[in-house]
């Protein structure tokens, strides 16, 4: 244990680590010292003066958020002098604050309200005119109401330090000093909304949430974001069956309070007018809605007939659907339909990855370890665009722990700004780039290597051999896309034992049935078989659905329960936030099809299926209390002996503002001017670094 000092706070003997700030030492002892500008993890400001405390033997009040504890110090946080100072500060703060609490979004969740309630005066002595400026819109998601701002600079710091974007600053001075956006009257940034979340008052408000509701009228549903693979916990504010807000203010989950634009705002696809609300059957007159009963009967009959004549079935699963759904689909395919032709859009070479790591259960880095590692090497990925949470973790690791970050990429990435060394390589030159860093990496205490889709097959084995040869503890992250790529792989949506890969299914001219679940393969490829009966389960009429004979309306991740496994192999639980009439969860659809076909594949309730997963899938015997309480439980990688699979592996190349078809149906994502953006510093969709990009492949 580090050196400690003994001090007295409000008459209580307190022991705190040397260097601890008084405000933290008090907090550890259960004594609140109020503050606005002090914010754990961000630079100190000492601007709000709310944390003034009395320290004996010092002439004036001391700033609790910047003064470290000292041996024998005697601190008073509730003396009359301290109380009157707080009251005075709040009185100053309220002079120009509009007190429009009854219509302010923040009302009920406002730190200023809470502070005034607890420490303020009951009445105001301010009788002069308040300073007023009109509200400004800085972007589709960020509005700024300057009079409400108390200038705590949290937003400025989270944008600069936390996000590495630095889109906010301070303009003017004195009483008209105000936060200003980076482009004079508007923002060009990540549109992550971290500034809105961290704002203690209603100065920064969200374009999607403002004036929609009072916070106490919502149900708050903690679930997992469905967009990228990082698996951020997002707490959805639900009122009258609509999702109104996404944030994670309670800092539960692996992401703490972090969310990107997708996790915070891009839930609006759930209520897009193009949502499929009924099964659609292709007829001579185009698609016509049919009942679920008729649709299920049709599917069961077709599948049954093809199975009976030993025809060729192909199933393309999803990298969005839950573990339970994937598990049940794999079981339905192999046991029920008797086919091995099952695959999904694979975005990272997990096959080789797990084979190369054979027997090493501790080689997978967790999300938390990207924040605690001494060094991080990013190979072939634009981390801030493709994995916003992992990038946030790495940035925080550098800031808080002095970690070293190294990049080996084919173009500029945000991580370069903090990088101890950055290497630019041509595609295929990644390993040579990594090799050039050998001497520097060898001297690190430990290392996490995160690599993208350009590292696959032999390259991947070589990368792991490189890591092994460094002589330091090394862990890995295989950067896959989408919310449950890991789960799709782990649950067996892969063409093992001679099954057809996705490409092979599409190329097979004699395919009898193509069943596509939550995927959009026909956006970028053609179906060769002209006679195949095509069934598609999706939320929208995607390019693939438009070629289907039957389209089944599926529920989104926000409309179902179950678990997903993130890019780091951590299992987390989804919690149903809303219900969309007409759509069914994929698990229910699978179950009903099985039932219709007379197959006995067990109960299809998510909890029951998860129990089976825990029993039968390697690495998934995770502690239930952790999952049930909304935590993330790390899985172990499949323990080797993973045979090579046919088929292509390619990242969708999604950016911060895209996530396959979901993003195409998010009005919000399409409204921000930065969308869809590009990887490696490329700006527009016409100038993309790689991959099909906006709209993705899944």
């Amino acid at each position, binding site marked *: 244990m580090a050196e400690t000092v003994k001090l007295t706070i409000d008459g209580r003997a307190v022991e705190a680590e040397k260097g601890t700030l008084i405000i933290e030492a008090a907090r550890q002892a259960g004594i609140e010292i109020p503050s606005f500008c002090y914010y754990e993890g961000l630079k*100190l400001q000492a601007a709000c003066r709310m944390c003034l405390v009395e320290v004996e033997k010092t002439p004036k009040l001391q700033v609790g958020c910047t003064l470290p504890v000292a041996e024998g110090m005697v601190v008073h946080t509730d003396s009359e002098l301290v109380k009157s100072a707080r009251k005075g500060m709040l009185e100053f703060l309220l*002079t120009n604050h509009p007190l429009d609490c009854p219509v302010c979004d923040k009302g009920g969740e406002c730190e200023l309200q809470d502070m005034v309630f607890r420490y303020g005066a009951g009445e105001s002595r301010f009788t002069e*005119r308040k300073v007023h400026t009109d509200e400004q819109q800085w972007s589709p998601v960020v509005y700024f109401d300057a009079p409400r701002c108390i200038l705590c600079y949290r937003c400025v710091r989270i944008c600069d330090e936390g996000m590495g974007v630095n889109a906010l600053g301070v303009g003017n001075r*004195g009483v008209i000093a105000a936060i200003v956006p980076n482009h004079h009257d508007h923002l060009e940034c990540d549109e992550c909304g971290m500034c809105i979340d961290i704002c203690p008052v209603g100065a920064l408000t969200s374009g999607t949430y403002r004036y929609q509701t009072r916070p106490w009228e919502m149900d708050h549903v903690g679930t997992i974001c469905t967009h990228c693979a990082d698996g951020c916990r997002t707490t959805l504010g639900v009122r009258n069956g609509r999702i109104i807000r996404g944030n994670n203010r309670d800092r539960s989950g692996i992401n703490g309070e972090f969310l990107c634009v997708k996790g915070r705002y891009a839930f609006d696809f759930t209520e897009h007018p193009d949502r499929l609300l009924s099964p659609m059957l292709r007829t001579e007159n185009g698609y016509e809605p049919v009942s679920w009963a008729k649709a299920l009967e049709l599917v069961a009959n077709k599948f049954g007939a093809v199975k009976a004549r030993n025809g060729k079935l192909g199933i393309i699963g999803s990298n969005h659907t839950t573990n339970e759904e994937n598990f049940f689909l794999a079981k339905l395919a192999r046991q029920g339909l008797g086919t091995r032709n099952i695959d999904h859009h694979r975005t990272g070479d997990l096959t080789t990855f797990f084979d190369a790591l054979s027997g090493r259960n501790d080689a997978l880095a967790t999300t938390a370890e990207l924040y605690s590692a001494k060094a991080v090497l990013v190979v072939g990925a634009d981390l801030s665009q493709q994995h916003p949470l992992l990038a946030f973790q790495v940035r925080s690791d550098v800031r808080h722990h002095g970690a070293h970050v190294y990049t080996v990429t084919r173009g500029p990435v945000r991580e370069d700004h903090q990088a101890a060394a950055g290497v630019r390589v041509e595609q295929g030159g990644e390993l040579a780039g990594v090799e050039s860093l050998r001497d520097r990496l060898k001297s690190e205490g430990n290392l996490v290597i995160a690599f993208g889709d350009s590292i696959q097959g032999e390259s991947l084995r070589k990368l792991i051999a490189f890591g092994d040869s460094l002589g330091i503890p090394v862990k890995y992250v295989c950067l896959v896309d989408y919310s449950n790529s890991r789960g799709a792989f782990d649950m067996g949506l892969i063409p093992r034992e001679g099954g057809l890969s996705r490409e092979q299914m599409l190329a097979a001219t004699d395919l009898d049935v193509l069943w596509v679940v939550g995927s959009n393969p026909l956006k970028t490829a053609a179906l060769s078989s002209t006679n195949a009966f095509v069934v598609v389960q999706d939320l929208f009429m995607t390019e693939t659905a438009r070629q289907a004979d039957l389209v089944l309306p599926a529920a989104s991740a926000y409309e179902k329960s179950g678990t997903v496994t993130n890019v780091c192999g951590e299992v987390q639980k989804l919690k149903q936030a809303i219900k969309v009439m007409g759509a069914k969860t994929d698990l229910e659809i699978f179950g009903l099809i099985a039932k219709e076909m007379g197959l006995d594949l067990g109960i299809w309730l998510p909890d029951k299926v998860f129990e089976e997963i825990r029993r039968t899938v390697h690495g998934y015997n995770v502690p239930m209390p952790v999952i049930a309480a909304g935590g993330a439980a790390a899985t172990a990688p499949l323990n080797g002996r993973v045979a090579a699979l046919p088929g292509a592996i390619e990242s969708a190349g999604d950016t911060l503002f895209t996530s396959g078809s979901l993003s195409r149906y998010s009005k919000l994502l399409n409204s921000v001017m930065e969308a869809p953006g590009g990887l490696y510093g490329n700006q527009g969709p016409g100038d993309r670094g790689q991959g099909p990009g906006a709209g993705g492949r899944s």
Partner: protein
Amino acid sequence: MLYNEPSPLETRVVSKRFGLPNSASLDTYLATDGFKAFLKAREMTPEQIIDEVKASALRGRGGAGFPTGLKWSFVPRNSPKPRVIVINADESEPGTCKDRLLIEYDPHQLIEGILIAGLAVDAHRGYIYIRGEYRYLIEHMNAALAEAYSRGYLGKNIAGTGFDFDLYTHSGAGAYECGEETALLDSLEGKRGIPRMKPPFPAVAGAWGLPTLLNNVETFSAAPAIIRDGGAAFAALGTPKNGGTRLVCISGHVNKPGVYELPLGFPMMKAINEVAGGMRDGRKLKAVVPGGSSCPLLRADECDILMDYDTLAKIGSMLGSGGMVVLDETTDMVKFALRIMRFYAHESCGWCIPCREGTTWLRKILTRFDEGGGRREDIALLGELSRNMLGRTFCALGDAAAMPTISIVDKFADDFVKRLAPEAVTA
């Protein structure tokens, strides 16, 4: 700016060249002992230079009055980082107008003082931060720098001594706050001028994180005389612990306002009545701002004192930056308080809550009061709000606004009562 008629009561040390023909030229400077002190200092060790400055009892002339020798000794000469000297020419304390004369009439004395400091802290680079409103002075200073460079008194191998020093000017953008040393450093670095958290102090991590010696123009300007004639001789001009002379800027209701160099410990009433030619139109003295607008005011009956740092501190005020404003019996203290508060509300950088909101609130109350809307409870409120700022703001600007206000409402409450709104009087 024209230099006022000197007074025979002055002791002219730093201003001794004021009024000479071409006083700003290097030739005049060299003909009047110029750069002798630098050559002498070159033969001394840094410790000896600093000891000499300590012996002079010179205290910072920017306002805080910190012992200069001690400040110079704080700069870590053995640091692996290069040391930097920053010259505070952001003269913005209302009532103060001395640094501009030192730059305009004797810039080479300032340069020499900086070079001596460079020898003392082993620095080879300096920045003169000149307030934005003094734009014309940048030209004066740049001309002097150019002349010094061309004649070998700046740059490489200065005066053949092997000592190198580069000196630059930097313009402020018009902010009182940037007179605060750490805000000045942020501004110098190209950032928004807001004060920094201390520690670390500039001596350890100042401009660009380098060990930095930061002093006022007048402080550096005193260094040549101290080295040339010895610290003891300079100290002997003033009173104990208050060495030497300083430029006192006397303004307000006197017959001969101007900048006068007076020894520390000079009697205040003598300065008003004799040096500055007495009260204008023979009116009675009402109050004195002893050292710039942030100092608590003195009533006429408190002014029979000696002007040195310790005496002023004893009676609850400050010698500050030498800006002495003399107010006669016709002065309306409500208006005076408003004028001061308008300044501070305008100049508050906005960083911390009490100063940002407090100065503007006070300004609004005083404005209302001045416009005839004064209420009886306002008088106490003015004092109370000021006390809520005092000692609780991030930097001293809040104190600078609070201190004079407190002294005005405490000492001149009658002026406020006289100006109450009619309905408040009858109430």
